[in-house]
């Protein structure tokens, strides 16, 4: 009943491997015989393209574009001529990129980290807790974390930093400048999309000075560092704070973390 494309898509989704689906969503009448509605291609990096849109040149162009979109983790609509020509409209496709889940690295194996692991898992993050102190960074203290690592933040980021991208997040919760500063400096050297650091206003001010002394650029810090971390929802407990941090991660990703965040009731404009 279901065929090879579904089986391979299913396999990739379950194993977390990147996969892209090209789906014909509109087709001009004169080419519908060659390229029926719902024709599809399945693309995976380094693997053979499955399926066909009915015309080899169209397959070549569409799969090339879909692989490029998969690399950037974006989905969207594209238009082609019947033989894959650009700037033509005979064929509309929807390209869906299924990419691996976003990563969250938490530096500091503290109580707030445990709550943050729990909330971030609800949002689908793959979560790593990293702390240089082996007594704190234990699997038993963070049962829901995907990984618990005993290492210094800067050394760990040297290793995994290149894999971090715009969908990923780094939260620095140690409260200790000797861990905080190298963690933040290390994270600024990556393309991570969200970087936040916990601390009171006072901690924040002192840490800011240390970061500048350590060579961080003020422009970089202002543009990228969310510190003190979290949205101002009045959180007190570790769990409430975790919700406030995750809400900020969502707000940064969706470009809403500028200026005052207000209840939807008190704003205007579109919600979605």
């Amino acid at each position, binding site marked *: *009943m*279901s*065929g090879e*494309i*579904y089986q391979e*898509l*299913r396999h990739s*989704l*379950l194993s977390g491997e990147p996969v892209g689906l090209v*789906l014909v*969503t*509109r087709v001009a009448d004169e080419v519908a015989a060659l390229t*029926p*509605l*719902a024709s*599809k291609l399945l693309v995976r990096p380094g693997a053979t393209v499955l*399926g066909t849109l009915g015309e080899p040149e169209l397959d070549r162009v569409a799969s090339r574009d879909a692989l490029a979109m998969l690399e950037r983790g974006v*989905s*969207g*609509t594209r238009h082609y001529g019947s033989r894959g020509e650009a700037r033509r409209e005979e064929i509309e496709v*929807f390209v*869906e990129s*299924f990419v691996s889940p976003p990563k969250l690295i938490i530096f500091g194996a503290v109580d707030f980290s445990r709550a943050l692991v729990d909330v971030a898992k609800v949002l689908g993050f793959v979560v790593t807790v990293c702390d240089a102190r082996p007594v704190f960074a234990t699997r038993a203290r963070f049962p829901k974390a995907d990984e618990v690592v005993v290492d210094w933040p800067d050394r760990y980021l040297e290793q995994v930093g290149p894999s971090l991208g715009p969908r990923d997040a780094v939260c620095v919760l140690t409260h200790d400048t000797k861990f905080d500063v190298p963690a933040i400096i290390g994270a600024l050297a990556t393309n991570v999309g969200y970087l936040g650091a916990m601390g009171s206003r006072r901690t924040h001010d002192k840490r800011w000075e240390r970061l500048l002394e350590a060579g961080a650029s003020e422009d970089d810090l202002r543009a990228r560092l969310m510190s003190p971390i979290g949205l101002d929802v009045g959180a007190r407990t570790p769990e409430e704070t975790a919700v406030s941090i995750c809400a900020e991660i969502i707000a940064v990703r969706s470009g809403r973390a500028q200026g005052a965040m207000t209840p939807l009731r008190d704003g205007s404009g*579109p*919600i*979605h």
Partner: protein
Amino acid sequence: MKEILSTVDNWLAEGKRVAIARVIGVEQSGPRDPGATMAVSEDGEVAGSVSGGCVEGAVVTEALEVLATGVARRCSFGYSDDQAFAVGLTCGGTVHLLVEPLDW
């Protein structure tokens, strides 16, 4: 799509035919982004969603017709004042779907 796989697997294992409805475009406001997927079995069972619950009932009807004819179709659900009783998104947007039999 991942969230509907286990349910779809169960239906397929029971020998049921399945239709997939996928959001392929949203105009203005829409509760689910393109890529949101809903599966409908030939018995009218549902997994996943394509809106906030506004149009799922109509999508089941479309999906059952698609299974009956075996032919994929594109359909859109919007909102306008002169269609006060038609199915639509209460948020004022339009959602475009492709509904197809899972035969690939």
